[in-house]
């Protein structure tokens, strides 16, 4: 099975506190890694440090070790979504989806269909700033339906989504992993969908 991510001896600290150290794991195609831990344990820091948004203290991160061309352009094959939705409040849902897709290099995206998919049809002409947090989240999440990146790194993807939204998202996760993708995610909600290859990683954090 191809490995998509290999992490060795990762260590990070914030404000003098060691969040995690000697953290090693690998992620293969079709796997889901669920990072667990209390608030402030360092889950987000771990995910952000994977994509280089946080400086690491030590350790190595190797993207796509089996795939040399991918390894160099890992940004292109990795999709990261953080707490912030990166949705522009002044633009409408439709414009947000289109521009987001264009920036991702997908020009033939059917924005209407995507909006229908995430249940935003009828709201496409409103500035995103007037939508609820969950609806803005849905705009951002449309990326998951056209993205061709095999590796998804999702920080709290279920935040402010309703039960239907969470279900829809988990369905999408299942499709993605079935197609050979892999997901690293944090979530406080227990996953209702039981993936065959669900791994758990618990970060305790907090040691001084």
């Amino acid at each position: 099975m191809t490995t998509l991510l290999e992490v060795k001896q990762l260590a990070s600290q914030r404000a003098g506190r060691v969040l995690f150290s000697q953290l090693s794991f690998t992620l293969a195609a079709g796997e889901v890694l669920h990072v667990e831990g209390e608030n402030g344990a360092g889950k987000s820091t771990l995910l952000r440090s994977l994509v280089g948004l946080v400086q690491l203290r030590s350790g190595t991160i190797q993207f796509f070790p089996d795939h040399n061309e991918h390894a160099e352009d890992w940004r292109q094959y990795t999709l990261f979504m953080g707490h912030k939705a990166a949705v522009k409040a002044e633009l409408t849902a439709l414009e947000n989806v289109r521009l987001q897709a264009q920036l991702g290099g997908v020009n033939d995206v059917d924005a209407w269909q995507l909006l229908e998919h995430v249940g935003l049809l009828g709201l496409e002409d409103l500035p995103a700033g007037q939508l609820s947090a969950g609806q803005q989240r849905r705009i951002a999440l449309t990326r998951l339906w056209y993205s061709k990146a095999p590796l998804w790194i999702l920080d709290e993807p279920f935040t402010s989504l309703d039960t239907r939204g969470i279900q829809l998202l988990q369905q999408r996760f299942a499709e993605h992993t079935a197609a050979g993708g892999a997901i690293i995610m944090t979530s406080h909600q227990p996953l209702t969908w039981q993936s065959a290859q669900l791994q758990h990683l618990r970060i305790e954090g907090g040691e001084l």
Partner: protein
Amino acid sequence: MKPASNWQALRTVMQRDLMVVMRRRSDVLNPLLFVLMVVSLFPLAVGPGPDILGRMAAGVIWVAALLSALLGSERLFREDFLDGTLEQLTLQPQPLALLSFAKIMVHWLLSGLPLVILAPLCALLLKLPLEGWLALIATLAVGTPILSAVTAIGAALTVSLGRGGALLSLLLLPLFIPLLIFATGAVEAALVGTDAWPQVLLLAGLSLLTLLLAPFAVAASIRVSVH
């Protein structure tokens, strides 16, 4: 799978920023109104004698342009930082310096270019003698990109600081002083009948150099800020 080409990414970032700003027009209009207000109040305060006014005109217009650039600078990256757009930009496969260049260009299109267009009106209001008009417009045309580029560096550095406004002004103002000296010097030279082009060309060179190097500084600053 192919990522967006550099050109397409540049265009998309510009398109998005232009669309956002067009929905928030006051952000663009405020600095321009500021310049127009300063320019229209000066004749009232100093008196309409063409001698004094005409000699001060270039200085007044340029000082107003500098201050108006500082006025809106804080907001250059603020929204993008808060809503997570900046974070996503750093994760784009395209060079961040290129996307920073797009942001600088949008800023110039909406703050520098209108000033160049308004320059004749300002010159008229301040009774700048006709000999100085061309020099004024030329210095604004080549000088305002420097304003946008340098402002972008400062804004990117201070975007994560919450209230970075005062710090930003302190940081940027000294960098604008050479610009001010050469720009007003050029107009002065034109007024006394000597050649204004050496100063204008110097500014143009400075402008090109800044536009070339500033995107890298902005990119580095953005990376520091999102960390």
